[in-house]
């Protein structure tokens, strides 16, 4: 833990693994980080495949580094539901920084459970925050609501589109459009960029305003680094606006509540199944439900109560260690 806080990349890499693997040791680790988290500015980047998110993050990283800020990136890509494997290739485009110690990139696979992913990704951001990164970026492919939600767990969420994204935006406009604090139409030197910008602006007009902040629709050509300064300015503007209205505090508070709630559930779930008594009771309950002796929810409630009694005898639900 000291090594992490001292800025050792190896330590940060290992701690993220503990979290990603949902190993019991993570509770202690995250506990030790507690006082050091909350300093970093968090950016979420999401959007359909092929919009150029990695390239844009690479260009933003370059600009942030030039401004003297350190950067951490958590890049999330899907796990194959069939094999459990994943091919995480975002580094290729993001890795321009090479040996720059001011850039830390971690690739993460969704590993099936998206709820778990949201927690793991956010905790990985906590690690990079404690590790001393000034800006932490979390990137997800915006193909489903859950992935979009992961990118929303940030102070500012960028939705990146390209002129070719029209169909994808149509297919999932609600989730993706609601998520955005800043829209970026990347590959803006291509045919159809104007149409895409107009399409997004029209959707924004149709939508009820959420507050004082009106998401801007910006253009970029990330491959050439064009438009990146304007994006970072918009992010800063958004931050000031949120701060003035107390939005940032409210947003962080909301996120904290959600995380707490999820953590309570996670601790319980893990504790219940870590108890050998629960596994035994599960088999029995399944027999009763199968034979018509009990209904599903009734049996589940019974299981939960019996675990509570055992746990009370042990002095409360065990903390993972």
């Amino acid at each position, binding site marked *: 833990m000291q090594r992490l806080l001292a800025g050792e990349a190896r330590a940060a890499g290992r701690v993220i693994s503990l979290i990603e693997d949902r190993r019991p040791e993570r509770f202690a680790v995250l506990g030790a980080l507690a006082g050091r988290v909350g300093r970093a500015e968090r950016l979420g980047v999401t959007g359909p495949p092929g919009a150029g998110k990695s390239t844009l993050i690479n260009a933003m990283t370059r600009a942030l580094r030039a401004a003297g800020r350190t950067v951490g990136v958590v890049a999330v890509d899907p796990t*194959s539901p069939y094999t*459990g*494997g994943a091919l995480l290739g975002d580094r290729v485009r993001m890795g321009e920084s*090479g040996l720059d110690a001011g850039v830390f990139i971690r690739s993460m*696979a969704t590993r099936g459970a998206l709820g778990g992913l949201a927690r793991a990704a956010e905790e990985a951001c906590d690690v990079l925050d404690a590790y001393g990164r000034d800006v932490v970026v979390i990137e997800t492919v915006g193909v489903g609501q859950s992935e979009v939600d992961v990118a929303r767990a940030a102070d500012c969420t960028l939705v990146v589109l390209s002129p070719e994204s029209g169909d994808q935006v149509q297919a999932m406009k609600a989730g993706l459009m609601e998520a955005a604090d800043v829209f970026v139409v990347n590959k803006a030197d291509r045919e159809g960029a104007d149409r895409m910008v107009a399409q997004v602006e029209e959707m924004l007009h149709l939508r009820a305003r959420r507050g004082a902040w009106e998401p801007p629709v910006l253009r970029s050509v990330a491959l050439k680094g064009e438009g990146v300064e304007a994006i970072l300015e918009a992010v800063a503007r958004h931050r000031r606006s949120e701060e003035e209205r107390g939005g940032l505090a409210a947003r962080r508070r909301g996120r904290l509540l959600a995380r707490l709630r999820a953590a309570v559930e996670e601790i319980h779930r893990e504790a219940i199944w*870590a108890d050998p008594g629960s596994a035994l009771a599960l088999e029995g309950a399944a027999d009763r439900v199968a034979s018509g002796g009990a209904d599903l929810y009734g049996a589940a409630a019974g299981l939960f109560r019996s675990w509570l009694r055992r746990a009370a005898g042990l002095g409360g639900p065990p903390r993972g260690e």
Partner: protein
Amino acid sequence: MTEARPIRVLVAKPGLDGHDRGARVVASALRDAGMEVIYGGLWLSPEEIVTIAEQEDVDVIGLSSMNNAHMTVFPRTLELLRERGLGDVLLTGGGIMTAEDMEALGRMGVGRLFGPGSDMDAFVEYIRRWCETRARGTEGRGTCPTA
């Protein structure tokens, strides 16, 4: 509940050569075998390879070398891994290299190397076995632990 950790492998091409067919085929095969593959891409120096391995906390590094630079790249990568506390990471790979060179690298501590025409599944199996063996040798760790 702790889920079994998938094996994490960094697949990369050191040096200047861009012939990435082998690297990409192997990356796909490892993914299909249920591993998490971090594809590092082209033109990486040993320093960059080790930096990625550190950040990504991989169990295995697989390098594909087709341009006769393997006798420089593998030893240097190995040296850096040891210097930076990643001595427990398996360094393996393949490409155009003679049996003699493979043996010499093996004596230095590089894992098995796979020449042209090697069996793709044998490579996958080798990595899986290696990780299992390591896991058995270290109490209290997951399927392929790093903690």
